């Protein structure tokens, strides 16, 4: 009797947190999934709505605008993550040294990450302004033709802003990974004759890889959900050129007043993100399994 109680104790303590989790997380989620099978305008209670089965999903599948938006999102996410990874890791490799003033420099580098996205959006909108924007005024002074930043090149401009804001994230994680590398292995490689580049290529990058993969996945998941900065900068335009999924979902709900379709779209995004998360999870699991196997092998030997 006593032992049963003892065994239950952890669960008792666990209960309140679990209840809150279920209410806060699963209730809206289930609500959304439920809603995605209904024809639902914002003026209706969910009870008054009509059940339409998979119709929302199917119509989305055949909707060229949704496909376009999905394409923009993919283009955006893949470009920003690739460039940010290259820049972030590169900067980390460059700044991983103990020079006086380096800590100040590192702090400066991560400032963009701390600014609220709405502010970032407004700032870049000003920088990109066709006539009074910083960039075009600069181009004027050096006598180069102006660029239509948020017009014809809207997607590129949005990508640049995102790179500015999120490269620091990859930078600090890479830097942390670099600084926790086994120093003596690097020293050994210097004695073995490795040049700076060879140290980076043969020792540093391979040893940072686990952190880099997780960082990349985190950033990818985040890039698929980006909203505020683009909303403020272009509102998705011109045309659909920067209408990423999150933006389209919000427009479908508010402008087109189709909550059911918006919910279905969210679910598509959710499925995509879950696939990414699953990939990340599998990766860590594989790592753990490998580590375990190694430990067993060592114990068997000793």
């Amino acid at each position: 009797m006593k032992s049963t109680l003892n065994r239950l104790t952890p669960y008792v303590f666990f209960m309140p947190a679990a209840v809150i989790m279920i209410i806060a997380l699963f209730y809206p989620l289930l609500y959304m999934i439920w809603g995605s099978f209904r024809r639902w305008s914002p003026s209706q209670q969910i009870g008054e709505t009509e059940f339409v089965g998979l119709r929302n999903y199917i119509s989305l599948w055949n909707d060229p605008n949704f496909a376009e938006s999905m394409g923009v999102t993919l283009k955006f996410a893949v470009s920003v993550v690739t460039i940010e990874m290259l820049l972030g890791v590169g900067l980390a490799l460059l700044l991983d040294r103990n020079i006086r003033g380096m800590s100040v420099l590192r702090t400066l580098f991560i400032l963009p990450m701390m600014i609220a996205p709405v502010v970032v959006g407004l700032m870049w909108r000003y920088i990109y302004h066709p006539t009074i924007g910083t960039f075009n005024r600069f181009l004027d002074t050096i006598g180069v033709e102006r660029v239509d930043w948020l017009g014809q090149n809207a997607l590129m401009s949005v990508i640049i802003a995102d790179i500015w804001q999120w490269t620091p994230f990859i930078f600090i994680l890479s830097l942390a990974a670099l600084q926790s590398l086994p120093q003596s292995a690097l020293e050994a490689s210097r004695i073995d004759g490795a040049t700076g580049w060879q140290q980076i290529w043969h020792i540093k990058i391979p040893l940072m890889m686990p952190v880099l993969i997780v960082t990349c996945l985190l950033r990818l998941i985040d890039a698929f959900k980006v909203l505020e900065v683009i909303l403020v900068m272009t509102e998705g335009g011109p045309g659909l050129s920067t209408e990423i999924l999150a933006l389209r979902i919000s427009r479908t709900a508010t402008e087109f007043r189709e909550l059911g379709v918006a919910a279905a779209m969210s679910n598509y995004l959710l499925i995509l993100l879950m696939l990414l998360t699953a990939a990340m999870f599998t990766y860590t699991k594989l790592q753990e399994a490998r580590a375990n196997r190694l430990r067993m092998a060592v114990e068997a030997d000793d």
Partner: protein
Amino acid sequence: MPEIVFDGVEKSYGSVRVLPPLDLTLHDGEFTVLVGPSGCGKSTTLRILAGLETLSGGEIYFDGKPISALEPKERDIAMVFQDYALYPHMNIARNMSFALRLAKTPKAEIDAKVQRVADMLNIGHLLARKPAELSGGQRQRVAMGRALVRDAGTFLFDEPLSNLDAKLRGKMRTELAEMRDSIEKNMVYVTHDQVEAMTLGDRIVVMNEGVVQQQGTPEELFKEPRNLFVAGFIGSPSMNFMEGALVDIGGEMHVQGAGFDLPLDATTRTRLDTATDRNVTVGIRPSSFTTDTSGATVELRVIVAEYLGAQSVLVTKLGKTELLVETQSTAPFKSGVTQSFGVNTDEIMLFDRSTGLRL
């Protein structure tokens, strides 16, 4: 295989001075051991030699050529680190061949070299494993192998055995001693363990607080230590020290102190240039005590007898001073008993009390 000369080499970290100007010559083809207590600057010396640390002053010469401006890879050295420093993501074969692959050695030659060294070190069956899949002793061998695969002129070892358990350490020590004789290279070996130093070194350099105390063969250091530090550091169990004074008793020189009065033999006497009444520190090795009480004797109270097998070490007291006595285990000693021990007076060493120098 260069001759290596440290000429006034200094090292400071900020305001902390680790090496005062250090002069040291490491002869060609010799196995030199740097020994000293932890924190005395042995690793720093080795790392400066390897080029992993910069000098704060002085210069190092390889066969007369200054090398302090050279990168580690330009110094033709191989090094075994205390924590082995294997590349965690490469298997053993790739760990061992890393330097050769960087040097663009032909693959067949690499394979042959790796195989030969691996067989020599009994790690041939581990080549496909990663470092994490090895035990401590195996990793140690791999670290050794990675250095040996390269045909470097100088081999540096930084306490390579200190992370092993006692039994394995003994075994590896023997293997290293064997290897030392078969490889004709400059080897510089750092350790805090004087037993390792005595077993392995052709020549031993005793360091304390960055200063070279004495260098010489193991026998020289044991028999003719130059000062108190070397006398106390070399030898196990370590030398006993007592405060005493030199007294002339009827034309014969004695050293006297609380509870002892020992005549000095002729050789010791001739070493002493100055007159009597001088305060000295008396050093007697635990092995200089005997159970033969026909000569000079001291009365010692046995506190504990540490049985080590054939030998026993007695912890005894003379007044308040603790003295170690090494004896055969066949003679039984009871704790708490006061007893006479003979002293081989020709093995007594005298040190100046203020400078610590051997008299």
